[in-house]
């Protein structure tokens, strides 16, 4: 056994051991610790394996043909592309596991922690194996293990109806993906017993065009529903808030990325890329997802639902990058296409870091205040300074503000879109500037949304007693958040270095790189291939830091006198939280501007005094935004199925004569068809 496969064995053993040993733990606390310990060992194993593969470029291959040999056996093949995603899983998993020890402390004695342990470690195992799988069976097995365990994790706090609804939506959508994945893979298989990815690669090459298109569309729908593209994202805003926060962090930070992984694996690795319209479709889907994701996020006042919609947005951004890269590759502009792919992969990594950070931060808030409703939060920056600071970093990163990592990856994606002007066909090229506009609008709205999220939740005065009594969470939780915040910063300023290693990953997938190696880029700059455009996040950070420090020093040297006073309240004395701006009020202008899209249902009722209608007793105003595509897509679907089911129910009428008549009728039909067959 080589060292590489040893690390993989360590990974599996860690996850499985943690889950198994949790049953032997004497107390709930012990179970929590053992779970985390197993997860840590597993994640470290995974990280080691991923790092080895990324550095050496030699794939780790392990075959266990005796397990379920009729379905092709278990085949593990970790290459650079898989290793990138394995690294993501392991890194975020590591932090989430440690965070989870304290976060799940409140479950002691109230919830089956050992069951939770099995599901949590099983979830990590499933996700890790998805990135390692190298045949159909292994992939689907891992994929579904990931889905099922995460379903149970989502259902952890099952007392509320919302959670149960969420769980159902989630598992239904995830099964929808599986149902599409099966034919997708099998269409590529050259024969029934050739199901490794290497076979599929060969099989896809000889596939007729229509079948290739079919495979691509199936992949887009299947992996897209996992990744959360509009309109298949409906489970995200339901499931992420329902799950415990460190699980949401994993789901949103990593699991949905495996949808991206699958899409890249199938479209660009197994099929080696496709015609222009594939890229065009990806670009369109990405743009729509990005814009709608952020628009619906703006309307959400639940911290975790808001974050969930932002996952939709960021998946959209990643798809924009992939789509742009794919189109550029299709026109032979491989060096430019690579910018798109690099940006997309980089954004994948970045989103994992800042979204995990934000979910962990939200988890800290929810653990302390027992609510994720922003209208009941506020003032937390004084009670939970570390959490607030980390959350602020995450917010800035997701809003693509320099010099953090979100900016670096969006910069690359912007550049790849600008490169679209090199495309000779105007009707294709014209899509790129429009995507630029959408992406810019998206990031502007994202900034607005995170001003709301951070500003309403953490700033000003507490809006409820819970918020007023909040404390900083346990140090282990805080440390994980700070580590992730640091990660956002480091990934930002070290972007050029990250891109260098991402380039090596792109080189390893011919469908992405088109076989053209890239010239090594400078260490400090992100550059375009023509070398004319460049940007250095590190130098921007240094510049900005230097200016701020200089000004601050100058001001303090002069002597800065500060006096504390009340906030000005138009002369009214005594500030109350009721005077503060609310999250709904904050989002009101945008809701009005995009009312065509939101189509809010509004209900205004005013009760007046009997004497005169000018003396108002109370005003009640309620307004709801229900995403229109839920009405447009899902309602008719469920209604149709129900109608069919009602018809079918009639078959079982209860009369035994009717039943016998069915038998007779079936006999007649069978005889008739036998006759017809002659």
């Amino acid at each position, binding site marked *: 056994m080589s060292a590489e496969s040893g690390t993989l064995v360590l990974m599996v053993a860690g996850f499985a051991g943690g889950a198994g040993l949790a049953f032997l733990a004497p107390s709930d606390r012990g179970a929590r610790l053992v779970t985390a310990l197993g997860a840590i060992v597993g994640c470290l194993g995974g990280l080691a394996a991923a790092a080895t593969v990324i550095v050496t470029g030699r794939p780790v291959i392990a075959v266990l043909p005796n397990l379920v040999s009729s379905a092709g056996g278990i085949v593990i093949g970790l290459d650079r592309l898989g290793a990138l995603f394995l690294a993501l899983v392991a890194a975020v998993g590591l932090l989430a596991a440690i965070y989870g020890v304290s976060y799940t402390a409140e479950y002691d004695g109230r919830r089956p922690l050992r069951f939770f342990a099995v599901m949590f470690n099983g979830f990590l195992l499933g996700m890790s194996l998805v990135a390692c799988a190298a045949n159909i069976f292994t992939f689907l097995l891992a994929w579904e293990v990931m889905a099922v365990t995460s379903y149970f994790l989502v259902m952890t706090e099952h007392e509320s109806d919302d959670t149960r609804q969420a769980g159902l939506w989630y598992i239904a959508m995830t099964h929808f993906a599986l149902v599409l994945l099966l034919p997708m893979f099998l269409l590529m298989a050259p024969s029934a017993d050739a199901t490794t990815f290497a076979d599929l690669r060969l099989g896809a090459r000889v596939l007729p065009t229509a079948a290739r298109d079919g495979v691509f569309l199936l992949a887009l729908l299947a992996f897209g529903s996992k990744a959360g593209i509009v309109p298949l994202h409906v489970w995200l805003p339901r499931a992420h808030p329902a799950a415990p926060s460190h699980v949401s962090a994993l789901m949103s930070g990593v699991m949905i990325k495996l949808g991206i992984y699958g899409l890249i694996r199938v479209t660009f690795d197994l099929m080696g890329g496709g015609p222009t319209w594939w890229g065009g479709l990806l670009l369109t889907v990405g743009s729509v997802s990005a814009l709608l994701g952020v628009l619906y996020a703006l309307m959400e006042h639940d911290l975790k639902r808001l974050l969930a919609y932002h996952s939709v947005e960021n998946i959209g951004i990643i798809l924009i990058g992939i789509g742009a890269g794919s189109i550029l590759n299709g026109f032979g502009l491989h060096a430019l296409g690579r910018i798109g792919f690099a940006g997309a992969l980089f954004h994948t990594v970045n989103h994992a870091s800042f979204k995990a950070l934000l979910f962990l931060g939200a988890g800290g808030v929810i653990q302390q205040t027992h609510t994720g409703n922003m209208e009941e939060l506020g003032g937390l920056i004084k009670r939970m300074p570390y959490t607030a600071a980390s959350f602020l970093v995450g917010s800035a990163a997701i809003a693509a503000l320099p010099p953090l990592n979100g900016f670096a990856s969006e910069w690359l994606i912007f550049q790849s879109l600008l490169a679209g002007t090199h495309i000779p066909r105007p009707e294709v090229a014209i899509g790129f500037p*429009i995507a630029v506009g959408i992406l810019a609008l998206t*990031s*502007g709205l994202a900034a*607005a949304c995170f001003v709301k999220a951070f500003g309403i939740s953490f700033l*000003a005065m507490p809006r409820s007693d819970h918020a007023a009594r909040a404390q900083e969470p346990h140090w282990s939780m805080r440390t994980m958040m700070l580590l992730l915040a640091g990660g956002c910063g480091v990934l930002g300023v070290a972007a050029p270095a990250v891109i260098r290693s991402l380039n090596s990953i792109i080189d390893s997938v011919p469908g992405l790189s088109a076989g053209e190696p890239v010239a090594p880029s400078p260490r400090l700059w992100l550059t375009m291939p*023509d070398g004319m455009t460049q*940007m250095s996040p590190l130098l921007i950070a240094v510049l900005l830091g230097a200016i701020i420090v200089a000004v601050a020093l100058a001001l303090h040297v002069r002597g800065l006198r500060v006096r504390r006073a009340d906030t000005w309240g138009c002369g009214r004395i005594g500030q109350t939280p009721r005077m503060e*701006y609310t999250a709904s009020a904050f989002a009101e202008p945008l809701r009005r501007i995009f009312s065509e899209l939101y189509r809010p249902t509004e209900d205004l009722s005013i009760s007046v005094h009997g004497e005169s209608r000018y003396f108002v007793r109370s005003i009640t105003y309620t307004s709801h935004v229900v995403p229109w595509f839920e009405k447009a897509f899902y309602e008719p679907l469920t209604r149709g199925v129900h109608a069919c089911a009602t018809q079918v129910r009639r078959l079982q009428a209860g009369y035994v004569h009717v039943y016998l008549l069915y038998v007779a009728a079936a006999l007649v039909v069978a005889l008739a068809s036998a006759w017809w067959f002659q």
Partner: protein
Amino acid sequence: MIRYLAILAQTLAAVALAPALVGFIRWLKARLQGRTGAAPWQPYYEIRKLFGKEAVVSHTASWLFKATPFMVFGTSVAVASLVPLILAPSDSFVIGDLFAVVYLLLLGTFFLALAGLDTGSPFGGMGASREMTVVALTEPTVALSIVALALNAGSTNLSQIVARTIAEPSMALGPGHLLAFAALFIVTLAENGRLPVDNPSTHLELTMIHEAMVLEYSGPYLALVEWGAALKLLVFLALAANLFMPWGIAVSLAPAAVLMGLVSFIVKLAVLAAAIAVLETRVAKLRLFRVPELLSASFVLALLAVMSTFLAR
């Protein structure tokens, strides 16, 4: 090395000039409205006085409130050091491009909006909400203007754009360029809180945007915020001036060229400032919910700019 010093010098010059620009607009507006008005250098007095006063900070506010003025000023200065003002920065050593400029400015706005919320004052929240709305809606226009420029220059590198336009003056008069300029000008008005989007000279609760956000600031903090805002306006005008009509800008460090650059820079700024002043005396402030119409108009302009550049290629 000398280039870096030159950039440092021009940045400092811009920082120094910024209050005068605001003062000049105010003065000209007053004149156009038939008032005497304060002298153009009045803002310097104000800033000096503010620096001398003590700062009053709300009990409700956190460290973020105190950090924000530095962030706002810092981003403005950083941006000023990235854009071509008097001389075009070297094309071999560039820290950031147009996107970096836009997002650095967004960083400042982001913190300013947060600070608006931090005091718990309803005005702050109102300002923050409106400011973020306007900024979000201007982003696509900005980005598309960048595309229009980049289409010509083949790069978002500022000095490249400047160099290209100097090399091919005919391009500057092309429809794409002009439309993009118009779009960017509207964005400049919106981003800097000028009429018809926001009125910088009133403190009327229901209409103010930028002023509502900074309502709680006082003393040195207010000075930094105001100065940063002025600098931001200057940077925008400089971008409009130098990217679309870069003539006169210094491409070498020869004293004559630098002098020429300085003079042309001031002249261009003055012309644009005058345009703003004239505009501000002629138009009324738009209702808040009419602003998106203006911004979508600017977006259409930018889109047309891109289209026509495409077709002209």
